[in-house]
């Protein structure tokens, strides 16, 4: 038998079975997160299943992030339902304004190396940056976890993505993720784990890895896993909620496919409307007018993203007339940090609209909605038609620096034109 991948090792440990890719196993989860988009339905299913007591409620958390703040009566009622359920069952709830559940799972030290943490939201793959098997589940799965703390999972095959070299100036992890989407396509990793490896990984810090893991689901992946190293342990120092044991793949593990990305050779990229894998060098889109620029989300709403965007905007002299710049921090911790270090004041002085920490405009459920015919360039992870709440808008996806450069010029712009 060949050795095991990270996925095979974690799911074996969590199921108590010597599991291999293709097996279906029942696993005990280390944590589960539900959002206001998915939990109300899970609460209904839990009572339909005959549930009365939540199993191990200390391992369940809720985040009010998709409708933050509630834009109407119906969503306010969903929030009330979640608050009441959380209080009754002693479940920790992050209320409106605390941020995006995925970011909070990471910040609060719940996503730990070697762990299995599921989220009733597709971007739970983000936790893979910390060597934690994070994957998106549905509301009925969440209800089943309320019942017994377990979930059925098919053990995925793994694709190994070998990263070599270092990123050039003005090229960012988002560009690496878009390159991967271009190489694999929107379903190129369906049912599989993307396991990142190679000497290039060491040069990426934890925030960079979160961007890569987050976007793996846009290629259909079940998880996007890194090994743990000094940078992982450094981030978790003072955050980790319990002891953990990192998991590395065996040297003779089997991979369904191997891909190499040379970080040195990458240039800024953009995903064109309305598909995440319609990726081109940013030069192909340069000159197209933009009316809205969105900086935020669980992909591009962290401190480093705002610093990169601010630097470009300051170098360029601010936001162009006719552009609405929307800034939405991924969490209160991010908001506090950029407030303390002056970044937020810079954005405000440049006329930015500041949103409540949370999902904001990303999925069109609250926050600023683009108008008909509007071109948006965004640090988010999805650009489907209608994604931001208007099917007549056109969404481009790029790095924070490319988004900022475009905000500065009022047209899609390569940040290297401004920074060089």
């Amino acid at each position, binding site marked *: 038998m060949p050795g095991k991948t990270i996925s095979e090792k974690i799911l074996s440990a969590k199921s108590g*079975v*010597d599991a*291999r890719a*293709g*097996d*279906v*196993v*029942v696993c005990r989860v280390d944590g589960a997160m539900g959002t206001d*988009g*998915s939990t*109300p*339905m899970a609460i*209904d*299913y839990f009572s*339909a*299943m*005959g*549930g009365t007591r939540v199993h191990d409620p200390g391992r369940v958390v809720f985040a009010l992030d998709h*409708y933050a703040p509630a*834009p*109407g009566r*119906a*969503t306010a009622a969903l929030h009330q339902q979640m608050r009441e359920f959380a209080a009754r069952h002693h479940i920790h709830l992050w209320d409106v304004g605390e941020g995006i559940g995925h970011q909070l799972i990471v910040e609060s030290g719940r996503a730990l190396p070697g762990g299995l943490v599921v989220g*009733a*939201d*597709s971007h739970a793959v983000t936790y893979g940056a910390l060597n934690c098997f994070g994957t*998106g*589940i*549905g*509301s*009925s*799965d969440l*209800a*089943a976890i309320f*019942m*017994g703390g*377990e979930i*059925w999972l*098919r053990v995925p095959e793994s694709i190994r993505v070998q990263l070599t070299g270092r990123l050039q100036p003005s090229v960012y992890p988002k560009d690496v993720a878009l390159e991967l989407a271009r190489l694999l396509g*929107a*379903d190129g990793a*369906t*049912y599989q784990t993307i396991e990142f490896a190679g000497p290039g990984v060491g040069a990426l810090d934890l925030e960079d890895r979160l961007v890569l893991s987050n976007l793996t689901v846009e290629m*259909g992946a*079940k998880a996007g896993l890194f090994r743990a190293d000094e940078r992982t342990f450094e981030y978790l120092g003072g955050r980790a909620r319990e002891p953990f044991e990192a998991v590395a793949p065996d040297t003779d593990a089997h991979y369904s496919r191997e891909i190499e990305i040379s970080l040195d050779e990458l240039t800024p990229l953009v995903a064109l409307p309305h*598909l995440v894998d319609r990726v081109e060098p940013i030069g192909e889109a340069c000159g197209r007018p933009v009316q809205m620029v969105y900086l935020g989300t669980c992909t591009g709403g962290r401190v480093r993203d705002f610093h990169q965007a601010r630097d470009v905007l300051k170098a360029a002299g601010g936001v162009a007339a006719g552009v609405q710049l929307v800034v939405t921090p991924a969490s209160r911790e991010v908001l506090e940090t950029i407030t303390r270090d002056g970044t937020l004041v810079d954005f405000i002085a440049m006329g930015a609209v500041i949103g409540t920490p949370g999902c904001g405009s990303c*999925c*069109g*459920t609250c926050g600023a909605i683009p108008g008909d015919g509007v071109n948006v360039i965004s640090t988010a992870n*999805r650009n*489907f*038609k*209608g*994604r931001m*709440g208007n*099917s007549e808008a056109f969404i481009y996806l790029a790095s924070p620096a490319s988004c900022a450069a475009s905000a500065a010029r009022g047209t899609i712009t390569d940040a290297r034109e401004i920074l060089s």
Partner: protein
Amino acid sequence: MKAPAIEGRARVFGDDVNTDYIITSRRKRESLDPRVLRRYLFEELDPGFAATVEPGDLIVAGENFGCGSAMEVAVTAVVGAGIRAVLARGFSRTYYRNAVNNGLLPLICDTRGIREGDRLAIERACVRDLSNGAMWKVEPLPEVMREIIEAGGLVEYFRKNGRFRVWAADERR
């Protein structure tokens, strides 16, 4: 499969139909009731669909059906319209999972020859196009998933069993 053959009319879509195209996030904001949501099924892709869908219709799609958000209403809205199976060349994993958990049969098969309106029959290991006699093989479902679908979804499964049945270590796909 123990369940009787499913027969119905093909409603054909293309590749990469994401969950927001099946039901938009903003509709979910107003209601989670499948009987309400079914009125807006596929409104971004085919505004006429909801008015013409009939119980028993079968969804036929290309690659990567149900990509994007993991929202389960993208399955319950389909189930709410009386659709019992989706045939596609491939599914996103979260849609596949949510389908199983709600008793909607997700079948992976080569759907390229199926035309809008064709009469289809889903049998044990194949799909027949009754309109032209063509036949496609279907990949069998792993045991666990079949049990959940046969129960009618995870809610019914838990109502019946109270927890997951423990599968033997060697019970492999």
